[in-house]
């Protein structure tokens, strides 16, 4: 099993290419047979693979790109029987050299050729050189990025050639940055070249600019120093500003998570006065609904995966609203007029729901994935904004506004408030109190379910999901002022932003403790929360 016929050959090749690599050659017909090298990958160990990759790179032949890309992406497979190496993508096979599609040969076993980090890094560098001229913009971009990371003087001619041909602005900027960084690091580059490189580096080398400039500072000639120093100072200034902006953004995004988690509670607790300890479990049910939706989609319609959240949202709302209505009709209904008892009963409900989910779905984490539009990040000035967070912020605001409209602008909203303020009198005014109660609790629960869909995108989907948010949710609602939706919004955002400004100084643990202490002290100043209702009306 461990016998590898090609082992010796490979070793020899590796040595040879190691030699070759020291003298960069762009020869198109560099001796080694690409097909044989690719085929050798099928049986190679990790170390051998590393050698093969550098051999393939050394050929300089663009036709090695597909196989290397596939290898890095984990799409390169070997046929266990024939030893043939193929690319598998979306259940179709291609030849790794010619990129032609191959008919599947029976149901032979394919096993994936495994790669590790350092191999992927090697492939990245190798591909960088090979793909700088690729017709695909994204590929060129990542090639330019890997050139920037490599900072090797050897790449300079290649880069310059590519810059001349480049049509895309962003890619050209990245290439220029890579070139400037390389030049700045070269001892033998001319003063003029270096001088020109400084602003380019400062502007486009990203976070590393200061480090690169600092490194250059130590070797730079006297004349260049002031200009490098000025650039560094400029970068530091920018960084401070962007750092603050970043904290605000992080705070808003944490605030939106808190808002989402708390807003359902602002109904069941804030409006209805039910101390709803099962609120977290409603959030959890929403997340599990997302899981089930994704599971069904994965099984039956993988193409719809990007819509999974759109499908999960209404379903999660319905499911949790229904559960909420059942809880209201079954238990809470019997407890109006003694709100504190609801603490006891909903605690019991929360235990039961948790255990039920544990029994049905098992105690372990469930797999919920981000659709493509929820993954990754984009840059905004000096900020890295992740899509998932951005969408959650947007979603939180939409939910908030919708809820505000329901409560303030609809007949149901008015009736909800009337019923919870004086149930008997509301009934005597002709309001169907049982219906309104059920709807109110259902609405609060449904909104918790919506929060669950959002939280499933950033957190664990496990039976404990809800427990992690319940304390924060109560804190937000109380801090903002019970019964005031705006209070909940401002409360969530304040706590989020305060937390994120404290965290860099105090650390996550102390920040959290400090926030709690600040809330306690704040309540001494405003005993009924941020947006306290005032006047006689409250005291009755």
């Amino acid at each position: 099993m461990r016998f590898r016929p090609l082992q010796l050959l490979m070793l020899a090749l590796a040595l040879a290419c190691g030699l070759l690599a020291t003298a960069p050659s762009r020869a198109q017909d560099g001796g080694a047979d690409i097909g044989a090298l690719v085929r050798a990958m099928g049986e190679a160990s990790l170390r051998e693979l590393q050698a093969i990759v550098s051999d393939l790179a050394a050929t300089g032949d663009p036709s090695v790109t597909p196989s290397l890309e596939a290898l890095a992406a984990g799409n390169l497979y070997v046929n266990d029987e024939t030893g043939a190496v193929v690319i598998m993508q979306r259940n179709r096979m291609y030849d790794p050299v010619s990129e032609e599609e191959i008919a599947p040969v029976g149901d032979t076993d394919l096993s994936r050729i495994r790669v590790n980090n350092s191999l992927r890094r090697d492939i990245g560098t190798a591909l960088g050189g090979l793909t700088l001229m690729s017709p695909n913009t994204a590929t060129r971009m990542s090639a330019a990025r890997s050139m920037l990371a490599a900072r090797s003087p050897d790449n300079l001619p290649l880069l310059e050639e590519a810059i001349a041909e480049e049509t895309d602005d962003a890619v050209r900027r990245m290439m220029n940055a890579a070139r400037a960084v390389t030049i700045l690091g070269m001892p033998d580059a001319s003063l003029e070249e270096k001088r020109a490189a400084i602003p380019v580096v400062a502007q486009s080398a990203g976070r590393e600019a200061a480090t690169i400039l600092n490194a250059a500072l130590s070797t730079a000639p006297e004349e260049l120093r002031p200009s490098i120093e000025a650039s560094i100072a400029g970068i530091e200034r920018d960084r401070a500003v962007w750092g603050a902006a970043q904290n605000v953004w992080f705070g808003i995004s944490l605030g939106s998570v808190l808002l989402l988690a708390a807003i359902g509670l602002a109904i069941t607790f804030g409006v209805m006065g039910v101390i709803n300890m099962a609120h977290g479990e409603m959030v959890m049910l929403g997340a599990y609904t997302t899981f089930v939706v994704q599971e069904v989609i994965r099984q039956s319609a993988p193409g719809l995966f990007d819509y999974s959240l759109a499908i999960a949202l209404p379903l999660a709302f319905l499911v949790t609203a229904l559960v909420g209505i059942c809880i209201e009709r079954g238990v809470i209904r019997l407890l109006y007029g003694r709100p504190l008892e609801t603490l006891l009963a909903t605690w019991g409900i929360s235990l039961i729901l948790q255990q039920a989910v544990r029994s049905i779905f098992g105690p372990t984490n469930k797999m919920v994935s981000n659709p493509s539009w929820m993954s990754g990040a984009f840059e905004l000035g000096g900020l890295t904004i992740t899509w998932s967070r951005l969408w959650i912020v947007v979603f939180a605001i939409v939910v908030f506004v919708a809820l505000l409209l329901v409560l303030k602008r609809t007949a149901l909203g008015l009736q909800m408030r009337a019923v919870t303020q004086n149930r008997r009198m509301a009934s005597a005014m002709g309001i169907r109190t049982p219906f309104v109660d059920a709807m109110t609790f259902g609405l609060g629960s449904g909104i918790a379910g919506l929060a669950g869909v959002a939280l499933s995108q950033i957190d664990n989907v496990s039976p404990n999901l809800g427990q992690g948010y319940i304390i924060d949710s109560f804190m937000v609602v109380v801090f903002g002022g019970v019964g005031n939706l705006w209070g909940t919004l401002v409360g969530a955002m304040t706590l989020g932003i305060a937390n994120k400004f404290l965290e860099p100084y105090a650390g996550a643990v102390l920040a959290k403790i400090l926030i709690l202490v600040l809330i306690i002290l704040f309540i001494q100043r405003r005993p009924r929360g941020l947006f306290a209702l005032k006047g006689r009306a409250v005291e009755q």
Partner: protein
Amino acid sequence: MITQAILRALDKKAIWLVGILLVIAIAIPAGNLLIPPGQPFHVPAYIVTLFGKYLCYAILALALDLVWGYCGILSLGHGAFFALGGYAMGMYLMRQIGDRGVYANPTLPDFMVFLNWRELPWYWQGFDQFWFAMIMVVLVPGILAFVFGFLAFRSRVTGVYLSIMTQAMTFALLLAFFRNDMGFGGNNGLTDFKEILGFPIQAASTRSALFAATAVTLALSVIVCSMIVNSKLGKVMAAIRDAESRTRFLGYRVEYVKLFAFTVSAIMAGIAGALYVPQVGIINPGEFEPANSIEVVIWTAVGGRGTIVGPIIGAVLVNMGKSYFTGALPDLWLFALGGLFIFVTIFLPKGIVGTFAQWWRQARGPRRDNTTPRDTGASADRPLVAADPQPKPAE
């Protein structure tokens, strides 16, 4: 004057309760130590420890009932006072280990040694003395409650706002005690105790003595609580619970009354924690968990709040249930426990004791019920706009 107040405290119910507790305090240790295993009345060591723990919980629940059931302050952070008392005791027990720790360091507890602490922090000084530790058992929870209460009651933080703030307090303490830097053993807490007052902590006789001490402390707590609630102060507390601002207009200093009840209650909770630690052998930040404090509320509600026996019965029964079910139905016990809570709320709205008392009274003839609050909503609910003072009519 004081004797009069104590005499008033000992109404028929309280005398019975104290009597039973004192009998238990003698009988169970005797059944464990004097009757050899295998004899019908032998009490296994397991039962002694277990009930010792339950009785500590009972003191805690009674303490909570004093503020919640009688004064309308729903504390969701009483576990914090319990834990602080426990830590004070734990620190004493830690110091008692002396050089018998794994690193044989005569002053530093083991966890400090392996985390490279060089010397004992100032706040650990003195805990090698039992009397000092006992003073701290009372002072630390007492002072925290006093300061917290002073701030909160003076600013008129009431109802759910107060409840959630007590929860914030215990949660902040939880996080703080988790930190190794605090010097309380991080999340592992304090453990590996050897001796208390020179007696080996695992010896059957020590265990029995601790049990007896717990039962006697519970009896004393019953007397103290009974004395408070049967006095005019008890009526003022109930008045505050039901109509806080009206009580002010009668000239009562609501904040001082609350502060008194809260501090007394915190001290009781702290003593309960101190008795608990040597019996279970560990104190860790888990005791600050908000869920633990909520459980205390639940024991009290199940037993019947606003009564003296209720919280004791609730604490013992719920915990017996938990002990039994976690072994008998490990996969289903949460359904059973959750179901129990729902059942009690709906069918026994005044808790076990309250409801039975009502049946009893009804069976004996239609007399007015004026011991337990009618409207269980009470003043802690006042900020909840839903508070609806009248019983719900049939719909």
